[in-house]
């Protein structure tokens, strides 16, 4: 029998302390834009944000807006949650392979537990956070 995953939207998440070099991502979420670091020397994207390129260890990184479209690379059904997630199980955590080639860890919402599958196409879903930024989640593509 099909059972929906908890969308975790009611989870009182702890405030997130942002690294200065990840601010372009968080600022982008205010306008629901997915911003990802890009290494111009090697023409590759990298995730999560870092102070240097993962490919060259140099700092000439750019930020580029991407569509946020991707596919499920892997996922787990969280039957046990910690801290503010306790009592909100089961919920879905996935690694989403963006079309640009990076994997982002995110909650999957509007999805049944037996509906999620590796290879499923997903699009961004934005969950508002108290500081005006949005948490990047994903939902099945229409």
């Amino acid at each position, binding site marked *: 029998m099909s059972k929906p995953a908890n969308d975790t939207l009611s*989870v009182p998440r702890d405030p*997130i302390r942002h690294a200065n070099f990840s601010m372009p991502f968080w600022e982008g979420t205010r306008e629901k834009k997915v911003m990802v670091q890009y290494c111009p020397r090697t023409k*590759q994207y990298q995730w*999560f944000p870092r102070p240097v390129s993962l490919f060259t260890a140099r700092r000439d990184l750019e930020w580029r807006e991407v569509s946020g479209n991707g596919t499920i690379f892997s996922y*787990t059904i*969280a039957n046990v949650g910690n801290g503010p997630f306790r009592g909100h199980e089961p919920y879905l955590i996935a690694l989403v392979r963006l079309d640009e080639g990076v994997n982002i860890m995110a909650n999957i919402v509007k999805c049944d537990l037996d509906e999620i599958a590796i290879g499923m196409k997903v699009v961004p879903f934005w969950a508002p956070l108290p500081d005006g930024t949005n948490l990047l989640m994903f939902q099945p593509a229409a």
Partner: protein
Amino acid sequence: MALRDNAIVAYAEAKHEMRSGRDVWDYAGEILDALLERSGLERAEIDGVIFTPSATGAKTPMWSQSCLDYLGLETNFTDTTDLGGCSATGGIARAAAALDAGYCETIVLINADTPSTEDNLIMRSFHHEWADPEGLLGPPGAFGLLSRRYDHLYGLDLNALGKMAVAQRDHAVLNPNAVEKLRQPITVEDYINSRMIADPLRLLDCVMMCDGGNGFVMMSRKRAKEKGYSRFVVPTGYGERTNYKLSQNDLEPTESGHRAAGEKAFKQAGITPRDVGSFHPYDDFLIAMMIQLEMLGFCKPGQGAAFINETNLHFDGDLPLNTSGGQISAGQAGLAGGGTNLVEAVRQLFEEGGERQVKNIANALVTGIGWIPYGRNWGSSTALVLTPDA
């Protein structure tokens, strides 16, 4: 001087206990005392010490000096090997390097942690910004993601995973130092029916935190012979890799640095996986052992389950696996936990395995796993080949 010019002349291990109520330094003291007793050394002869980090001491910078103060030791070389679950095996390599360099002559390695009594572990890491908001349950969550991907690529054989769980539990029954409540046999069905934690990861896939300690005394092989030790264990091969292919975006989480670390350790020791007498892989999760079998070259990627299904993993079998029960069945003494796999390998090569003594003591292979990175398998991989002095 080289790695194999060094010797482990003594080992010690405390009984693993859940919520012992004991201080972490009480374990460290117990190990130091036991090492002096076993080695016959005087305190004044110890001039080097290496510790593993500790979840209990995690809020404390200068952890090594803090420990040394309680232990009353005066040294020429002191360090903490900060490699998570690779700290114990990594410590052996670092101790050998310090002995080779002449920084010290007699070095003790002390691994003690009491996370089930006092856990002070706070991670300043990517988790805060990029995994905690998603509700990832630490290592089990990461291994849930890894297991699902393994299942997608190769299929998860629960019977093979369960077979490892059963073999290790049988070994824990024979190990008086294992956590007492884990010294009960289990079946493959018990494993399969255990509740889901991070689906497809089950409760009996996972380690359980406990308190414990273990340790070693090392010196040059030459000195060990001069001092008349009739038996000692020599590290003959070591490999270590951190962030294996980290900058490859499409790396599968089923790939680990044990491929590189194992190749190096086997080459240095002059053996192949086929020659391994007993195997003591770091076991935070069952699937980690299966992936290590694949990465170390016991079998091809995706063939781990087939290898397990056709291999007798008991202490008297073809490839004895974690003959003390490993961490999954003896308990994980926090960041000292890598020493649980290591101390059993050394014990077996001293032929002091008692009821669970392995037959083939030509060598033993011990591994480490340290740090769980973002969306991958593990950060550090170590492989250490040990050989009794010929």
